């Protein structure tokens, strides 16, 4: 029973944390890929190669490489622990790792495909496929809340009392973190 109550409590904490993000109007620019920005970076890089054989410079500075660099940078921002602690909460972030771990270890049909889809979701934000912040917020939080609860549930099933104790500590830290550093949300989004 106590395990179920813990899961419900975590769910409420995660939803409550997501609600805090409603003070914003959109996510910060570093989450987004910008074609214009990429072109400027290429131009700057090529400019610094003055006097260097252009054929070789092209190998290092081209649209394919810069596209990969820029999209991966934006994508990694999404998994940044500083963003995650404020967006998913600390317990939610821990749950995410557990969720992926148990998902990949499970015998659920298409588990790897599900994991890949989960990993691809942030690209909706990287390429700005959705123009409504509220829908963005739901897409970027709700699926991860589910997998995080799945992970924590499996974790406390496996480790029983010790697992539960760790989860309780992380719940306390999560609430403490959000209350102590509420302004940190604004490092990752624009206020309304």
């Amino acid at each position, binding site marked *: 029973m106590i395990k179920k109550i813990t899961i419900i409590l975590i769910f409420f904490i995660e939803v409550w944390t997501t609600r805090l993000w409603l003070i914003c109007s959109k996510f910060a620019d570093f989450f987004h890929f910008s074609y214009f920005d990429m072109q400027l*970076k290429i131009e700057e*890089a090529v*400019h*610094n*190669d*003055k006097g*260097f054989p252009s054929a*070789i410079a092209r190998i*290092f500075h081209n649209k394919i*490489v810069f596209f*990969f*660099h820029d999209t*991966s*940078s934006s994508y*990694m*921002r999404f*998994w*940044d*622990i*500083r963003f995650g*602690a404020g967006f998913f909460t600390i317990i939610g972030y821990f749950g995410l790792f557990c969720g992926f*771990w148990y998902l990949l270890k499970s015998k659920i049909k298409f588990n790897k495909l599900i994991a890949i889809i989960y990993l691809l979701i942030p690209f909706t934000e990287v390429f700005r496929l959705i123009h409504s912040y509220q829908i963005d917020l739901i897409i970027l939080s709700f699926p991860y809340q589910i997998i995080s609860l799945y992970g924590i549930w499996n974790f406390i099933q496996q480790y029983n009392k010790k697992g539960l104790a760790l989860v309780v500590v992380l719940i306390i*830290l999560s609430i*403490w*973190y959000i*209350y*102590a*550093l509420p302004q*940190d949300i604004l490092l990752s989004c624009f206020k309304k």
Partner: protein
Amino acid sequence: MNKRLLIPLLLTVLLAGVLRFYKVEQDPPGLYIDEASIGYNAYQILKTGKDEFGIAHPLFFKSFGDYKMPVYIYSVAGAMSVFGKNEFAVRLPSALAGTLTVFLFYFFVKKILELNRSRSSQVIKSYLPLLSTFLLAISSWHIHFSRGGFEVNEGMLFYLVGVYLLLLFWEKKKRRFIIGGFFALALAMYTYHVFRILSPMTWVITSILFILKLPKDRKEIVIAGVMFLLFLFPILQFSFTPEGSSRFSASSAFSEYSTRSAQEKEFTFPMIYLKNYFSFFSLDFLFSNGDGNGRHQIHEFGLLFRFEFIFLILGIIWIFEQKKSFLAYITFFLLIVAPIPGAVARPSPHSLRGLILVLPLTMITSIGVITFLEFTRKKIKIALIILILIVLYELSSYIHAYYYHYSKVNALDWGAGYKGIVEKATEKSDQYDYLIVDKTLSFAPTYFLFYNDSLKPIFVTSDWIKPKSWDGKHILYIRPFYGKRSDPKLVNNIYLPGNNNDIFAQLWEL
């Protein structure tokens, strides 16, 4: 040692040496302000036995009030006795320490595997030490800090020596290893500030572990512990003086919250610390942008290569799957303790204060590479070729960026331009009665001391006006560039490296 692995190991160390020493005196471009200060103090020690403030053989160097640790400065003094007062001598101890760290890392990883009683695959046992060494040799993070006069790099070598000797003690139970190990940890403390926390912490943890697990050797452990405390005593005493804590006060992560009430501080500080601690594991920090300080990494490069990301994940999965593995314990120990000192300071994350993270991350990445190759063993040749091509591309891309872009884009971060000022001032000094330098060139006093301390410039504020009593005197006035590129009274422009003809400072005749 397996003779089959000797040549690859030597080649790897040679590669590490080339990557750390090639053009080290000119890339990065110019000495940054701390390097210039270290260089001048080292030179003074060498020539007079005193630091720039006239204190004989100090244990802590006042410098800019940050009280630098002594070991690196004395190492530079040694280098200067052979190579003279120049950029190469200032950076030599760091580049050498970087190369030696790569060499030692092989034996460190090998020793961990020898002590590892849990079952790990033969491939891991055979290839992990060499692969880890290779990845550390080409690590952009480690190369970068080996090429500047950063004390942390030398400190990391001593720390690694210390931990390695403690592993030897664990294996052979010889007194000399534990004493040597604790001595090396103490030496690390006297090299860079982060080890003032890391070394005592490692001493406490290993001592407890040894006392519990090696009850027969308690006498050795206690003797070595007492010796460590004796080494620790001067720094401990110093840490409680205002001078000793000045470094902490100046860079404390909590100082910006100093106006808050005590209750608010108690509530907020632990979470600030937690945030700072976790920030060292931020993917953006590790793989994309580093800590944002131009002196700490190349623009557009993170601290680790992007190809390492997938192997890092595979390595972490492998480690989590191990049960009672010594390799996993040591890797996690280093991973967990490395950010502890850095998280107390700001800005956070900080690639210099977190440099020691490069060791466990390299080990985990190497495990990931081996796991990947084992996984693809049916098509291992194709996998290996693709992997080698990716590594070659990333490495050559990094080298290209380092030698062709970095000196142009980040010239100001490295104080490039100041050397030019002093050289021109020296060249012209005979023709002028007074040398006046605008204080807006804020680091100029240190660079004048390092490059030519016989010049005695007068430093003035920007609103300085020539005194009437100086009419008829020849004055050379050095100031930053304010927009005028040519004038009859303009003696020289000091340009920054790069393709833009950016002027850093100008020499005017008054």
